[in-house]
């Protein structure tokens, strides 16, 4: 039920902050999404969408974190092996 998926904002319409909506593409499937909770979202941003509402903007830099983490772990792993 808490399923929420990332999609990219194609366009934004409306000036009322409560009903500002975006057309959001989920891998090609486009849906109308309420943007009231992501006031700083702009066209091109990826947002996490749950039951018709964007609840966050995907942080593109942080999104690389897990891969960065893997790389660091690998380096640590190397260090451990050299130490033994």
């Amino acid at each position, binding site marked *: *039920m*808490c399923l929420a998926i990332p999609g990219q904002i194609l366009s934004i319409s409306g000036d009322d902050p409560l009903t500002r909506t975006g057309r959001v593409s989920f891998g090609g499937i486009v849906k109308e999404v*309420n943007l009231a909770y992501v006031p700083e979202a702009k066209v091109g941003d990826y947002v996490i969408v*749950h039951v018709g509402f964007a609840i966050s903007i995907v*942080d593109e830099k942080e999104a690389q974190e897990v891969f960065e983490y893997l790389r660091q772990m690998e380096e640590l*792993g190397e260090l451990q092996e050299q130490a033994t």
Partner: protein
Amino acid sequence: MRFIEEYRDPESAKRLAEAIHKTVTRPWTIMEICGGQTHAIMKFGIDELLPPQITLLHGPGCPVCVTPVELIDKAVELASRPEVIFCSFGDMLRVPGTSKDLLSVKAEGGDVRIVYSPLDALQLAIKNPDRQVVFFAVGFETTAPANAMAVYQAKQKGVQNFSILVSHVLVPPAIEAILRSPTCRVQGFLAAGHVCTVMGYTEYEPIAQRYHVPIVVTGFEPLDILQGVYMCVRQLEEGRAEVENQYVRSVRREGNRPAQELIREVFEVVPRKWRGIGEIPQSGLGLREPYQQFDAERRFALSTGSVEEASECISGLVLQGVKKPPECPAFGTRCTPEHPLGATMVSSEGACAAYFKYRRGVQAAR
């Protein structure tokens, strides 16, 4: 799809699993709170990648599963009224009430509609001024901003024929209830990434401290879950008990402020009964005074009674991580997704349904 596929990369998953194998020195029991995570763990076989010392327990984080029978009965009662258009998310339709579910009401001619968003239900009310539109507002903190917005807009627009049947529950009180139980085996938690996207994770910090239990805010893709487990295991091995955030691409410590403001405007914290668990104080949301005209229970003066659960179903123990679904004698025989005895078999995020779908026949009660 971007931000989904890359987190399913099998190579990276293998490397994370290796890192977990290297880190673990003794047995640990970790609970994932959210049913969405349970589903992903079963679907991608994540538990099978983990070293045998790690046991994953499945938590109560499926709103469909914890909605009490009384509320299903109320939904059935409302949906049966000729003047009502009853709107719900699809997964509530097959949850068994005392005598029937919403799907049978629909089959008998009740106007039951599946909607994607509570705003769709509000639109239906505006388009059908001569009918009463009731939305079944079920969910955790993730769904609360959407339901709050529907009620807020209904009030602003003066929509008289819209109301919600509220069954809103909160995650932190459930974690505390699990930790306080004398049968608790959980040593670390994966907290639900989308709940925390809305609420942030400051509420979890005192819990981690008080019960000395690590809590890692975790996403829903295989790499997220593996990294969450890794971070949790590291804390356990090092004797730390902190709140860490794995799902940084969506979760900020303070959460989504505008969403929290609207939740607080419309809802207040109230005690709630959880199916299979019982009443937990301060564990849910109810409408605040200025919005109570939109409370379906008030508008329709529904009977309040408490109902006994089917005795055979052990979903309460499953939801608290005490038992695993295959330990239930009815699992896969008298209880299947076609003929569910309990809600954990209905929802695709329920632990029983996830085991049934992905592990039938496999000896899964590890």
